[in-house]
């Protein structure tokens, strides 16, 4: 397409046309697309496709010509919509966290707004999991969500609604929508580079993300440097040298003579695609010895993530936890849980008629494990995550610690401190291993309800007091003194006359009393946020309690009850605090000490029991034989040998 063919592109025009686009899309949605159903052939169709882009909302998409100057970035929304209904996909678990009507399911890994300067570790999630804060409640617009966390988002969700909100409105025409990047998961080509995608997101080059990350094109320039009025489709020279309009340069060798491109699209998404966002790095392990760590036993056995975490055309992933059918939309496949494969249960939770689990999974014997354990513990408690030790370890995850990005992975960003395994009681009443963070943030309290403050607002009001200059130690907490808290709270209190400024950290709420002195107290908002650990699943021999090893858990210093959880806080004098695991589980420590101590006598009990059984058996047998002799004597007298 030539630049001269395009009229001047105004933001207003695009916005007005959005409604028309919506109507056109809904019309398209009514008919089933080629790729929405299943033709019965298990082979994945060859995806030799024309690349499309929609230049004007409401108009038909145009075909990409890689030789065109300036070349346009392709849109996966329109390219894939030739065969798949984009709206179905949009409702999927990876793209619906901003949709209030979706049931949140059990707690999951949230986004964490971490800032060393303001000593903030704030759990954020649009799903409304208890302990997290909705983005809009803490001043995060969809635009800022993408700016903060878009590096590990697959597009869609906040990326498609930011233009509907005031803060992102003016950037929509420059950056474009951050559409679902189907290739982020479904492209089996090893050139698919999500780190490059993250880079493009940080540059606000949203509409260039799929092209750049797929390895099909190189993208230069930064939309973030351009003014809102700049027309990226015109490709005009920028007004000043600081402006770098994004441009795309396709790899011509990948196009056939009809300008079609082959994408190695797969249904069974490679694990590598999942790992970019779903990994765990153990900090206790020397990075040079990371190779010694075992992977999840299922992966080692040859399974793929998507063998269990499946979905249909709606992309509503099976998360695979017990109770998911009650807490998710729509109800999911019960048999794709641990129990479904290993203890064959059908989709109603009953034992399957065949008595055989899925995928040839071995049926566990659980030798020597009393039944009560299955009522009180999740499968993961014994089988998953790091083996519990005397004190919880620290881990990092891609979404929280930005792992996997160019230039970042070598640095030791410790914040936020994510501890694992921490055993807590879940909503089903079972104890499960989790990852855990202690929230830390400044907020305004009204009627005991605390609203966290925007990090940028805190920096603006109290940046000097919080010692911005030295707080650049980004790998760990900078110490926060009581004087700093006392100095900051009055400044933040000026933000709202009807609320009281508070600081939350390390399980405590800090506030100023009438005399202006800092007082600390317990508060619901200060409680840690934790989410369940499902992987890595350890081999059965490495499970807790394997082969009747009761003392893995039932001894007076067992990690599962008496392991120590660090109470993470930047507040001076409060560092080094610990909580016992039983406190996190809501259990009675005295009881568990007493009960676990009784296992010292277990061998004695077994010996006594077996001995007594022997004695009773012998006497019963003796008397039974005597009785039998008596009975026999009824039928005939005993014959004695004559002398």
């Amino acid at each position: 397409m030539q630049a001269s063919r395009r009229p001047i592109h105004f933001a207003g025009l695009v916005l007005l046309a959005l409604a028309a686009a919506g109507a056109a899309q809904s019309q398209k949605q009514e008919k089933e697309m080629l790729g929405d159903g299943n033709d019965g052939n298990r082979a994945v169709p060859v995806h030799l496709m024309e690349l499309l882009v929609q230049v004007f909302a409401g108009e038909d998409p145009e075909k990409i010509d890689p030789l065109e100057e300036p070349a346009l970035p392709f849109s996966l929304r329109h390219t894939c919509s030739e065969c798949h209904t984009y709206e179905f996909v949009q409702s999927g678990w990876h793209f619906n966290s901003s949709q209030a009507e979706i049931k949140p399911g059990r707690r999951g890994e949230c986004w964490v707004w971490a800032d060393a300067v303001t000593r903030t570790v704030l759990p954020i999630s649009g799903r409304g999991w208890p302990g997290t804060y909705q983005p809009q409640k803490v001043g995060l617009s969809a635009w800022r969500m993408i700016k903060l966390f878009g590096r590990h988002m697959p597009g869609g969700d906040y990326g498609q609604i930011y233009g509907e909100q005031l803060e992102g409105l003016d950037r929509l025409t420059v950056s474009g929508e951050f559409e679902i990047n189907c290739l982020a998961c479904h492209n089996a080509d090893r050139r698919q580079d999500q780190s490059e995608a993250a880079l493009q997101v940080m540059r606000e080059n949203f509409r260039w993300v799929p092209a750049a990350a797929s390895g099909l094109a190189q993208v230069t320039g930064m939309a973030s440097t351009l003014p809102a009025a700049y027309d990226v489709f015109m490709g005009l020279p920028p007004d000043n040298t600081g402006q770098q309009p994004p441009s795309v340069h396709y790899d011509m060798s990948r196009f056939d003579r009809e300008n079609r491109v082959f994408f190695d699209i797969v249904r069974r998404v490679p694990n590598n695609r999942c790992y970019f966002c779903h990994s765990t790095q153990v900090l206790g392990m020397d990075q040079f010895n990371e190779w010694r760590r075992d992977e999840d036993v299922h992966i080692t056995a040859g399974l793929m993530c998507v063998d269990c975490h499946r979905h249909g055309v709606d992309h509503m992933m099976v998360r695979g936890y017990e109770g998911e059918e009650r807490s998710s939309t729509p109800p999911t496949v019960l048999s794709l849980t641990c129990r479904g494969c290993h203890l064959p249960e059908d989709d109603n939770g009953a034992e399957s008629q065949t008595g055989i689990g899925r995928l040839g999974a071995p049926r566990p014997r659980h030798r020597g494990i009393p039944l009560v354990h299955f009522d009180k513990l999740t499968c993961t408690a014994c089988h998953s995550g790091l083996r519990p030790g005397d004190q919880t370890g620290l881990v990092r995850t891609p979404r929280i610690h930005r792992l996997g990005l160019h230039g970042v992975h070598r640095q030791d960003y410790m914040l936020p401190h994510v501890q694992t395994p921490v055993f807590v009681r879940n909503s089903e009443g079972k104890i499960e291993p989790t990852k855990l963070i202690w929230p830390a943030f400044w907020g305004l309290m009204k009627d005991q309800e605390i609203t966290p403050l925007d990090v940028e607002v805190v920096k603006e009001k109290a940046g000097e007091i919080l010692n911005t200059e030295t707080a650049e130690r980004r790998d760990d907490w900078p110490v926060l003194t009581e004087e700093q808290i006392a100095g900051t709270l009055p400044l933040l209190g000026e933000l709202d006359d009807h609320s009281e400024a508070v600081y939350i950290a390390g399980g405590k709420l800090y506030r100023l009393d009438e005399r202006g002195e800092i007082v600390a107290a317990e508060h619901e908002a200060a409680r840690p946020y934790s989410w369940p650990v499902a992987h890595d699943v350890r081999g059965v021999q490495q499970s807790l309690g394997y082969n009747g090893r009761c003392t893995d858990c039932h001894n007076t210093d067992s990690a599962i009850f008496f392991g120590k959880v660090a109470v993470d806080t930047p507040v001076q004098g409060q560092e080094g605090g610990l909580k016992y695991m039983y406190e996190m589980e809501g259990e009675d420590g005295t009881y568990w000490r007493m009960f676990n101590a009784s296992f010292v006598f277990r061998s004695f009990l077994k010996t006594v029991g077996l001995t007594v059984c022997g004695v009773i058996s012998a006497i019963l047998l003796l008397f039974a034989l005597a009785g039998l002799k008596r009975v026999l004597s009824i039928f005939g007298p005993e014959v004695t040998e004559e002398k």
Partner: protein
Amino acid sequence: MFRILAAIGIGGALAGAAAGYYVQKRSPTEKRPGKPFANRIQGLEGLIYIVTGLSIFGLAFTGFWAALIRGQANTRYLLVVHCTLAPIFCLSLAATLVFCAQRYKFDKSDWRGVLRASGWRKVCFWVLMAAALPVILSMVLSMLPLWGTVGQEFLYQVHRGSTLILTMAAIGFIGLSR
């Protein structure tokens, strides 16, 4: 189901024991010569009887409290008490059997057309002892890494069922003692 069975069983045993006690008291033919049972046991034997009786009562209370009142498996402090009493029960029961087995041999005086109270007491004694075997064995075996989930479930049911029989026999034995 077990909750109902246990309630009926224990209730029936209590009623039966009360009826037996009443019959013994009213019927001159059921009266045995000599001192009442409580006065006849003394010394070590008496101590063994008391310890066995108390441990059975304690175990039955801690076990059936959970099953009957709470409708769930025995857990927490009640379980600790239950486990603490278990070896005492085992040892005292074995001692009872060793010291008293001869006394509870059946003889012709137990049978006069129908089984007399003394005969029923002996039946209770031997049922108690026979039931103790699966009660103890089911728990000891469940502690060994031999039985999987299905085996554990089986042993648990055996433990519950045999405990119910043992408890009923113990109630009958005490009710028929004079």
